[in-house]
């Protein structure tokens, strides 16, 4: 990744036509912009994680609902994200050697792992909601009131609020990441795929499932992607792939804190 950071020369004299001041951080502006965004986004997640920990400390007893199945599921989700980071690194390498087909292949592999994470997480949410863990605004599936976790939702509402708030925010970031990588990998070809996924999600997911409404994030992603791709069409280069990779690795990084805090600290003792 030697050319990932600009090998810029010192601008000898400023004020001359065609010469610009050398960048402060020795990196191209898109990368600095993404780092600054990630720094601000890390504070968003930091605040949510601190709020979760605050609730975790002062609420006694804290519910411990995650059994063996949930922990195995969450561990596979973690492995998916870690593997997606590796494939993302490979995509950046391929982009830097101008290998378009392997760049696309590695990006698609990254998207596959990201999508697997979202699907597994969606299944986990659905299971917990069916067992009674819910928030007031959520649709109510049949039999939810008598589920194992129904008492938790009413007795310790902080648990459901912080669990769903934190994981929903992260799932939204992963979804945005998959759409971002899809735009970089496939450009306009990604729009019909996204449209089909949105329609399939909307019509196939039952209306008593929270993801029947959550899938609208794909429609918003479709509109935003279409505006970007039609208003500023471009051939994404190695820098674009590297910047999208920074975002993707950040999503992975945040999960490294959510997983132990939310799941491992609330493991059901058998």
């Amino acid at each position, binding site marked *: 990744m030697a050319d990932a950071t600009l090998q810029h020369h010192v601008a000898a004299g400023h004020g001359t036509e065609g010469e610009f001041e050398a960048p402060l951080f020795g990196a191209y502006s898109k990368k600095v912009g993404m780092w600054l965004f990630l*720094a601000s986004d890390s504070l968003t997640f930091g605040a949510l994680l601190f709020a979760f920990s605050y609730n975790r400390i002062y609420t006694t007893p804290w519910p411990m609902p995650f059994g063996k199945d949930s922990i195995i599921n969450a561990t596979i989700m973690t492995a998916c994200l870690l593997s997606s980071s590796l494939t993302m690194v490979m995509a950046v390498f391929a982009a830097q050697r101008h290998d378009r087909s392997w760049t696309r292949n590695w990006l698609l592999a990254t998207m596959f792992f990201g999508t697997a994470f979202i699907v597994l997480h969606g299944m986990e949410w659905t299971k917990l909601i069916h067992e009674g863990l819910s928030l007031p605004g959520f649709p109510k599936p049949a039999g939810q009131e008598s589920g194992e976790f129904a008492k938790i939702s009413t007795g310790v509402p902080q648990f459901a609020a912080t669990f769903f708030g934190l994981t929903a925010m992260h799932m939204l970031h992963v979804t945005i990441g998959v759409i971002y990588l899809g735009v970089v990998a496939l450009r306009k070809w990604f729009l019909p795929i996204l449209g089909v996924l949105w329609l399939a999600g909307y019509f196939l997911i039952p209306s008593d499932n929270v993801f029947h409404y959550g899938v609208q994030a794909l429609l918003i992603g479709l509109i935003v992607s279409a505006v970007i791709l039609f208003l500023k069409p471009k051939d994404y280069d190695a820098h674009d792939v590297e910047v999208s990779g920074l975002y993707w690795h950040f999503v992975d990084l945040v999960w490294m804190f959510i997983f132990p805090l939310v799941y491992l600290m609330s493991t059901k003792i058998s």
Partner: protein
Amino acid sequence: MHDVAKHDDSKGQYFWVWGALLVLTGVEVWLGYNQVFKDPKQMLEVLMVLSIIKSALIIAYFMHLKFETALMRWMIVISVTGCFVIMFFFFFPDANRILHLGVK
């Protein structure tokens, strides 16, 4: 002259980092699932240390910060860490106050 990135371009190191992250995740799951530390505070501390090591590996290698200029590296690390330290001192003494003294 700006500090220009100098680093090893070999892909092998990224596989090692990926392997280390998977192993550390395995250790976390083992500690958490078997409730190795009975005191939740102690468990939290151990898990957070492991998570910080994992995040440092991701930031340094996958996000490539290790190979950026020193100015960029330190500015990002110091500013974000500083904000987290401030958040820590705002949140946790109050959480402990509620726990030990009750809401007053």
